[in-house]
C-alpha cells in the first residue's frame, strides 16, 4: 500500500462532519477519562461511572415530569449525588465505594419509582436520553465535553499536589492545614460533571471504559501518578483512534469498537509486564 493510500484510509471517514466530531469526541473522552480515571483506579472507585450514569437517569425523569431541560436535570442529579457521596463518606467514615453504592442505588430507585408514579401514558423511553451515541455528537455536545475537559485538566494541574495529598495522605494533609474535605469533594464533583457530560454525548459503555481501562493499563507500568496520567492519556487516545477507524472499516458500532481496543491494550500490557511489581510500587506510593 502506498503512502497516499494510507493517508486516504485515514482521511476518508473524516469527509463527513459527524464522523469527524465522533472522532474528536472519542479522543477527548479518552484523554479526560484517563486523567480523572487515574484517581478512580488508584482509589478503587471504578463503580462510580456506572453509578453516575444511573443517577443521571433520575435527573432526567425529574426533568421530564417537572418540565425542564433533560441536560440540566442530569447534571443537577449528578452533582447532588457527588455531594451526597462526599457527605456519607465524611459523616460516618464509610469507604467511598460503599457510599457510592448507597447513593447510586437510592437515587436510581427514586427515579424508577417517580417514573411509575408520574408516567401514565405512552412516553418516549427516557433511558434513551441518558445514553448519547457517539455517532450523533452535535457541535454543542463537543463544546460541553471540551469545557468539562478544560475544567478537569485545569483543576488537576493547578491543584495537583493538594489533590494528591488530600486523597492519598489525608492525615498528613489535614495536619498541614489543607482543606481535605473540600478537596475530596472537588474531585467528586469534577468526576460527576465529566461522567454526565460525556455519557450524554457518547454513551455509557464508552465512558465507563475510558474512566477505568486506560488508567488501569497505565498503572501496570507507571511509577508515579503524573506519569500514570500521561501514559493513560496515550492509551485512551490510542484506543479512541484505533477503535474509531476499526468501527468505520469493519462497520460495527463505534463505542463498542473503541472499548474493545482499550481492553485488548490492557490485556496485551498485562501479559507483557513482569509480575505484579509495578502496580504494587504504585499503590504503595499512593495509599
Amino acid at each position, binding site marked *: *500500500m502506498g503512502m497516499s493510500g*494510507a493517508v486516504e*484510509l485515514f482521511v476518508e*471517514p473524516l469527509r*463527513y*462532519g*459527524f*464522523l469527524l*466530531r*465522533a472522532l474528536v469526541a472519542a479522543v477527548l473522552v479518552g484523554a479526560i477519562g484517563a486523567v480523572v480515571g487515574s484517581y478512580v483506579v488508584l482509589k478503587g472507585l471504578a463503580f462510580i461511572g456506572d453509578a453516575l450514569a444511573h443517577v443521571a437517569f433520575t435527573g432526567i425523569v425529574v*426533568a*421530564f415530569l417537572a*418540565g*425542564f*431541560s*433533560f*441536560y440540566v436535570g442530569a447534571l443537577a442529579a449528578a452533582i447532588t449525588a457527588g455531594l451526597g457521596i462526599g457527605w456519607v463518606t465524611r459523616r460516618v467514615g464509610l469507604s467511598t465505594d460503599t457510599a457510592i453504592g448507597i447513593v447510586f442505588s437510592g437515587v436510581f430507585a427514586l427515579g*424508577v419509582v417517580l*417514573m*411509575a*408514579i408520574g*408516567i*401514565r*401514558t*405512552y*412516553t*418516549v*423511553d*427516557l*433511558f*434513551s*436520553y441518558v445514553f448519547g*451515541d457517539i*455517532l*450523533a455528537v*452535535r457541535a*454543542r455536545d463537543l463544546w460541553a465535553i471540551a469545557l468539562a475537559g478544560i475544567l478537569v485538566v485545569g483543576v488537576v494541574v493547578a491543584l495537583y499536589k493538594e489533590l494528591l495529598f488530600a486523597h492519598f495522605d489525608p492525615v498528613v494533609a489535614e495536619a498541614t492545614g489543607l482543606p481535605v474535605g473540600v478537596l475530596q469533594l472537588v474531585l467528586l464533583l469534577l468526576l460527576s460533571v465529566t461522567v454526565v457530560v460525556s455519557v450524554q454525548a457518547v454513551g455509557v459503555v464508552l465512558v465507563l471504559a475510558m474512566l477505568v481501562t486506560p488508567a488501569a493499563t497505565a498503572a501496570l*507500568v507507571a511509577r508515579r501518578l503524573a*506519569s500514570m496520567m500521561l*501514559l493513560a492519556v*496515550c*492509551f485512551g487516545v*490510542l484506543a479512541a*483512534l*484505533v477503535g474509531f*477507524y*476499526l*468501527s*468505520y*472499516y*469493519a*462497520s*460495527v*458500532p*463505534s463505542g*463498542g469498537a473503541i472499548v474493545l481496543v482499550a481492553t485488548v*491494550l490492557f490485556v*496485551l*500490557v498485562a501479559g*507483557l509486564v513482569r509480575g505484579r511489581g509495578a502496580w504494587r510500587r504504585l499503590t504503595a506510593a499512593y495509599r
Partner: protein
Amino acid sequence: MRRWLVLVLVLASLVLSACARQTQPTPMAGVSESAVPTPTPSEGAAESLTPTVPLAKKVVVVASTSVFASMVEVVGGNLVEVHAVMPPGADPHTYQPTPRDVVKLADAQLVVYNGGDLDPWMERQLEAVGSKAKVVVLAEGLEPPAGVAVKEEHIKGTRKAEHDHQHAEGTPEAGHDHRHAEGTPEAGHDHQHAKETPVATSSPEHEHDHEHGVNPHFWLDPDFAVIYIERIAAGLGEVDPAHAEFYQTNAARYIEEIRNFDVWAKEQIASIPPERRKLVTFHDAFPYFAAHYGLELVGVVVLSPGREPSPQEVAQLVARIRAEGVPAIFVEPQFNPKLAQTIAQEAGVRVLELYSDAAPAGMDYLGMMRQNVTNVVEGLRG
C-alpha cells in the same frame, strides 16, 4: 517509559495496517449488507413498469425502521435504494448504529421516520449529520381516531387524581368500556392536553415539538398506513419529480392491496366469537390496531418503554384477564417475554407473538400485518 511508548506505537500501526488490509478489497461491504432485502409481493409488478436504473442514479432513502423501509421499497420500486437504520428485529429503543448506517443517512436524499415518541433519535441523528435530505415525518399531525383513548385507562384503580377521564377509574367495568365511552371531544382534549404540557418544548431534545402523550404506533391501523404510503409517494415525487407519476401508481396499487388485506383481516377477526375479541399486549403499541378491528384492549404489561409495572398493576392485569376471559397475551419479539409469560401462567392463558415496531426479517408491512391478524385469530378464536 520510552519503551512503552514505542510498544504503543508499534501496536497502533499493527492494528491499523491489519484492518486496512482486511477491508481494502471490499470497501463497501458494510453498505450492501445493510440494504433492505427486496422480496415483497408487489415488487414484481413494479419492476415490469420501469427500466433498470444504474445504482448511482437511484434515489437513496433511509428509513428509521424496517417496517417503513418496506413501505418505501414498495412505492419506489427499483428507482430507489432503501436502507433501514434499524435492522429487522432490533429494538428501536436501544439500537446503536454503525458508522456505515450514519453515512447512509448523511448521503440520503429522502429520510423517512415515524416521529413522536417512537424514534426521537432520528432527529438527533439528522441534526448531528447536518442532513440536507427531504424529511418525511410519517405520523406528523396525525390524531388518534375518535373513540381511541390515548391515556391511562389500562392502569385503572390507582392514583385517581392523575385521571381526568369522566369514567370511574376504580371499577373495571367502567374502565374497559373506553371505546364507547369516549367520543371525539374527549380524544381531542387528550391531544391538546399533551401539547400544552411544558415538557413538549422544554428540553434541548424537543425542538421539533413532539406530541408527547400521543401513542405513536399509527401504522398498525391500515387506515393510517394508507396515509403513510401517500406521504412516502409525495416525498419521493418531490425528490425525484421525473418519476412522480410512477410513485403515485405504485402507491395506489399498494393502497389497494392494503384495502384488500383489510377486508380479509376483518373477515378473519369476525370468525372470533365477539366475547373473545379481547387483546392484552406487551407494550402499548396496539390501541389503533385494536380500535380498527373492534378488539377490546383490556390491558398492557408495560405501559411505556422502561416503565416497570408495580406489583399492584400486575395483579390487576391478571385479575382483569381472568374476569374478562381474555384468551391470550401477546408478546413482541424485541422485548424480553419473561414478565408476560409469568402473567399468562398466573392467569392460565396462552402466549403468542405480535409485531409492531420491528417486522420479522424478510417481511414487508403487509406480511407483518397478515401475520399479526393470523396470530390474533389463532390466539383468541379458541
